[in-house]
């Protein structure tokens, strides 16, 4: 027990500093909460993508099944690109907010939000262009296509709502140099969504060509 470190007994003036909610010593409970949340989310999507291949290879017919066109790559490439690019301003935002540069941070967060919104719009365009007549209920290929991309888009929409809260908090000064952590947690979730969009792009849009 000799390695146990104990801080000196505090004195009153130190107290407000000591009780500040975030302090750069070790990982916070919020950090681990987010890590585990992402783990469980990632498992959900991994299982979903595995189910995609299961259904594809368990059946004997062609893929996509006769009558279904190959996925259009135009809008899907744009949307995936938008979300992947948004990782950069997100990473910059984490640093600028932590340094206390509010305007710069807000600008970056707004850019992330715009790219996320672009993702959602492009996804909708993709639905309209790729499959004008719904295939959700015509065969398993269509079911997979719509539900996998739909579930992911729903997650991005939730991410956009969370971003609004983060932007508002930063604007009001509730987040900033003294309390930067929620921005970093938001960013972790956002990176997850971006990487996920790449995986979905490869599986749902590219793999039928193989």
């Amino acid at each position, binding site marked *: 027990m000799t390695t*146990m470190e104990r801080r000196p007994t505090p004195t009153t003036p130190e107290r407000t500093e000591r*009780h500040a*909610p975030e302090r750069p010593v070790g990982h916070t409970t919020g950090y681990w909460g987010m890590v585990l949340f992402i*783990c469980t989310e990632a498992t959900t999507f991994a299982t979903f993508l595995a*189910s995609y291949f299961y259904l594809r290879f368990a059946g004997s017919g062609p893929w996509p099944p006769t009558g279904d066109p190959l996925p259009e790559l135009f809008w899907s490439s744009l949307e995936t690109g938008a979300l992947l690019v948004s990782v950069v301003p997100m990473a910059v935002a984490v640093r600028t907010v932590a340094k206390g540069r509010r305007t710069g941070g807000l600008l970056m967060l707004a850019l992330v939000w715009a790219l996320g919104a672009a993702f959602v719009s492009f996804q909708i365009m993709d639905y309209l262009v790729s499959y004008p007549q719904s295939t959700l209920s015509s065969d398993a290929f269509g079911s997979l296509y719509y539900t996998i991309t739909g579930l992911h888009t729903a997650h991005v929409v939730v991410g956009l709502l969370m971003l609004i809260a983060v932007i508002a908090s930063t604007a009001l000064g509730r987040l900033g140099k003294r309390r930067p952590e929620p921005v970093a947690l938001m960013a972790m979730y956002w990176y997850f969504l971006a990487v996920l969009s790449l995986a979905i792009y490869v599986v749902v849009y590219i793999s039928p060509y193989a």
Partner: protein
Amino acid sequence: MSTSGVLPERRIAEQTVGAVLDETWEEEPGLKGWITTVNHKRIGRRYLVTAGLFFTLSGIQAVVLRTQLITPNNQFLDPEWYNQLFTLHGTTMIFWFVTPMLFGFGNFFLPLMIGTRDMAFPRMNAFSYWVFMMSGLLIFASLPFQMAPNAGWFNYVPLSGDYQQQINIEFYTLGVAFLGVSTTVGAINFIVTALKMRAPGMSLARMPIYVWSVVATSFMVVFALPPLNLANFMLFMDLRFGTKFFDPAAGGDVVLWQHLFWLFGHPDVYIIVLPALGIISSIIPTFSRRAIMAYPLIVFATVGTAIIAFGVWAHHMYAVGLSNVSMTFFAAATLTITIPSGIQMVAWVGTMLAGRIVITPAMLYAFGFIAAFMIGGVTGVMFGVVGFDQQVTDSYFVVAHFHYVLFGGAVLPILAGLFYWWPKMTGRMTSPKAGYWSFGLVFFGFNLLFFPMHISGLLGMPRRIYTYDDGLGWTVWNFASTIGSYVLGVGLLLTLGIFAHSLLRGPRAPDDPWGSNTLEWATGSPPKAYNFPVVPTVHSANPMWDGQTLTTMETYRHDEQRTMTEEHMSVRTSELDGRFEMTMLMPEESPLPFIVALCILATVTSLLFSVYFLVGIFAALGTAALAYWLWHRPGVEE
């Protein structure tokens, strides 16, 4: 120990800071406080009581089922009722009783065992309770309207994909997914609490085995629930919106359900059993009067079980027609997983052999558990062998096997845990003599109920049949089973009576009635709202016995970092070594968890009955409440 049963170190600490802490940690009384509480002990108690209630309801269903089977060609129940009852019995026992019951123990004791004041996310904790309770009410409410799930607890398609019984199956898919929210949130909460909030000095190597088992279980929940939720999502989409995931005519595949379900389902067996084994690992050292043998090996076995459990799911599917290669792989993995269980078994028996055994009701239940779990384990190994499994699959032999594992391996430890921790939870002792009777009746009834099922199963009786003909050789075994279920029922009623009597008339419990080894016994019986007046420094894996840990409660009683008298605060320590990092502010009581859970219940119910505009309204309300919740975080309002 002094005459009044208060540990001297705790008394001194309480005298110094107890009064201030009482005020800091006081919660609102009355109905409002009942809804808004975030106290992990109240939530834990609630989990136990609610899960106990569901156990009773589900147990009554089982007695009704057994009564139907008491004689051949009995007409007590019609087939549709029988289907709904056995499905609901299995579903609720697995999802709404065992896991939540063990989460209840975890909620109450995990923070106490690691020497902290609350869970890492107290409001999330309240939220996961409310979701559990409401989803349970939803699923039980289906029965009186004959809308209960009726395709077995694992709900195989295409049986469950039949549109005739859509509402029944939708109750299953939505109810289980709704509960999944609670289980996942609760599991994340346990992991973070155990990682970040252990008392200073409690390195991972000093963490009680019970805490290890809850953490291992929680990791399994994090990775095992997604396949289940996904499968339920797909089935719901198939039934309601016409997707074709499970429809072979349109490129779907029915076996996909089985893969997804058992990818969850087999880890779930260990999700249920591991914390129960953890309870046994707490009881055996106490009543053997020595530290547990082979602590590192038990931890290794616990974590190893949690990992291997993800590689054995297809042993539930030997009869499906998988390739020989995959069946061989899963058979090998299945036989491997017996090794960690065997290690724990040897460690318990070794601890008892090397110690001096003290007989109490809790210890008797632990003995009973070892015997029953051994039998369930042996039949489990038999099922791991493909040839044997293909002979007896879907027979009563399976029913016998998994009841030995689940009743013997989980319910007996739960009863052991109740007798063991009752004084800590309520401040009252139970009558030991009545406890012996409780054990005797329960154990006898349990064996009389489930052992004959091995035989009727080997004689070819399939599971899930609502009646059977005379002259097949099953009559006498079914009769015995049914009588056993009545005896078991009487035993459980007696147990309930013992606890009720203790609440009303039981003698006051001292802080540490059993002379136990872990930190929960360093608190009051029942513990104060703040648990520990002074957060101790932990010096060993058996802090109550090392002669140093308790002293630190006295030594640091003027140290503000250990007493934290001003606000709701807790100590945060490093993940591996348990080094002190900082004190952190904890959230206070709030009605938001209740409100958000209520919104989800309303959303799910509207979705169930296809009232889509209400789905939109309630989902929006829930989102708004959740946003408000996250906006008002502790430490932000200044």
